[in-house]
């Protein structure tokens, strides 16, 4: 235990008997919080990002680059706000993206490979983990959600493409198939059939906007970074709102449904619930 740790314990005024129990509580809360962060991040991504990151032949240089950062930063920002406001722990974004990546790989092995026989080369996921680390690091350095949104969210959006291109570039080498030039990713998607996912469902590069490199990649990356700023602020706000939730006022009818009849009993329960908040 460092000098700083001892100072924190001293300030917190925990009794010597309570300190070991406090550590036990830490472990329990970490486990519960991990499952909560994991499930919320995963469900949120499935609902909003879903198909865009399932298959290698959906990872286009326009929409994939745009959609994945903006659909993952929302939970990263929310959890960052919660952990920061309640405990000054700058790990919310990293935990959200790390657990999402873990959950994604479990699903890839269990469901995509195990149930549908898809090879892993068809379903390798991308990740915004490097952007999440930057987001948390900038929060520590700036101590400010405003600055984090301005610089961290921009880097979050911008880093997604290069951080994933490092290991995905090989899938975009040209190959020849049935007389046409195509990418390795397209060939993988064609070779391993998805009965319910016809080719035309993909939305690949709509529009003619290009950078000087004749690619929409960086246009998408910068637009993604721009959108990430606003989403970061919005969902930071949602996280702050979640931190302020103390208790919800309960009506008489609701109480009676749950067998808690009478105003006196209601007040007693309300008082009991409100007590920890009042103490704070």
């Amino acid at each position, binding site marked *: 235990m460092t000098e700083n740790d001892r100072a924190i314990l001293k300030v917190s005024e925990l009794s010597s008997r309570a300190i070991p129990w406090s550590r036990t*509580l830490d472990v329990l809360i970490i486990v519960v919080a991990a499952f909560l962060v994991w499930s919320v991040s995963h469900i949120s991504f499935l609902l909003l990002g879903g198909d865009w990151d399932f298959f290698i032949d959906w990872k286009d240089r326009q929409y994939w680059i745009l959609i994945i950062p903006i659909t993952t930063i929302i939970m990263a920002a929310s959890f960052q706000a919660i952990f920061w406001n309640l405990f000054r722990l700058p790990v919310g974004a990293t935990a959200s993206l790390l657990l999402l990546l873990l959950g994604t790989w479990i699903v890839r092995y269990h469901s995509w490979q195990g149930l549908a026989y898809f*090879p892993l080369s068809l379903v390798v996921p991308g990740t915004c983990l490097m952007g999440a680390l930057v987001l948390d*690091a900038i929060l520590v350095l700036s101590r400010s959600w405003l600055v984090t949104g301005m610089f961290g969210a921009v880097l979050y959006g911008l880093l997604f493409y290069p951080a994933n291109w490092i290991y995905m570039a090989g899938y975009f080498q040209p190959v*020849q198939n049935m007389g046409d030039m195509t990418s390795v990713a397209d060939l993988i998607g064609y070779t391993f059939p998805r*009965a319910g996912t016809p080719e035309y469902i993909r939305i690949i590069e709509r529009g003619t906007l290009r950078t000087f490199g004749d690619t929409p990649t960086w246009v998408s990356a910068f637009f993604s970074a721009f959108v990430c700023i606003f989403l970061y602020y919005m969902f930071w706000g949602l996280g702050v709102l979640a931190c302020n939730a103390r208790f919800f006022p309960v009506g008489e009818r609701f109480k009676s449904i749950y067998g808690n009849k009478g105003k006196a009993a209601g007040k007693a329960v309300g008082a009991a619930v409100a007590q920890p908040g009042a103490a704070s």
Partner: protein
Amino acid sequence: MSLHRMSLRRFGLSILLAAMTAATTLVPLPAAAHGERATEPYIRTRTVHWYDVTWSSEKIGVNDKVTVEGKFHLFTDWPDAASKPELAFLSNASPGAVMTRVESYINDMPAQQSVRQLEIGRDYPFKMVMAGRVPGRWHLHPVLNVHGAGPIVGPGHWVEVAGSAADYKLPVTTMTGEVIDDLQHYGVARVQWWQAGYALLAVAWIVWWIRRPLIVPRWNAIRKGREDLLITRTDDRVAAGLLVLVLVVVIGGYRYTTQKYEYVVPLQAGSFKTKPLPQVPSLVAVEMKDATYDVPGRSLRLDVEITNQSESPMRLGEFTTANLRFLDKSLDVAVAGVDPSFPKDLVAGSSLKLSDSSPIAPGEKRTLRIEATDAAWEIERLVSFLTNVDSRVGGMLFFFDAKGQRHMAEVFGPIVPVFTQLQLAQSH
């Protein structure tokens, strides 16, 4: 019953439920069926009619090939509820990627991408070459996915893949000369190693913070206005170091990768257009006068007016709809038209019943009652007339001239279901 016994029962039930949940969620159990009978009958009977479909083999080894080929006819009476085939994709239905697609063609045009502007009322030949990947007995169908109408599944045949899945390999050489040993594993290790590296950084960052007094002490410190204790100068240095490390890794890795893969192409996502088969002048005109489906008798009855416009006598040999084939078994040429590889369960056991099976003379106009009776109407779930927005039926009639040449004609119109024998007696 005592409280103790009830608790025990509840406990046992909970264990059973937990075990069932674990068994159904944790252990992957692949599905064998793929919903070929789930599509609404109005789509299956009035959109894409598959015919002359053959399978080159019903038993192959891993890596061996099976060819599915034939033709499909796009029905004139295409239902309004389903989008027209402006954009379509030729695929196959099988339970997952148990077979791989080697080649596919519509009218000899490579069908790697979607085809646009298919013409209603016309016929298209198709061909798919598949290779065995996962051992097992798999139902292999051709499928035409139509944008806005969904997958329209052709006849399915059981194909057995023998051998070991570990033997499957698909080597590919890229246009830049890189040899890929096996497409199904390509790049996976590289992705996993890099992402594991990213995850290691993330775990180190999280551990850096949670190793110290955490929830209650930090919460109390904030409430008491001592948040200055919670983030130290060392934390700042670690955060700055992490920031620099992430940027160096990403920018350096990106630069290295762009130099390594000098030639890359974006995903290819165009569509192609192909011509249908040449239109053959119709030598048989068919007009439906009346159609009923006898629900208890499982029999479709069509009253049709047929005009032979050819110079040869014609006989009706087959009625086909939704991949079901009803043959006039007294006509050898019609029976011979069923390829040995065609699935037996899609050929009705009973013969097509005709009110007059004698040849229709050239120029003759004849009203004929056609009865197609088989339990397959129920098995294939083709009788949900009450749930359709338009109670219509459609199918193809195959006529044969004196030389045994086949002539096709569409038949379609409204259909009335007959629910009781009494109603049947009253209507006829």
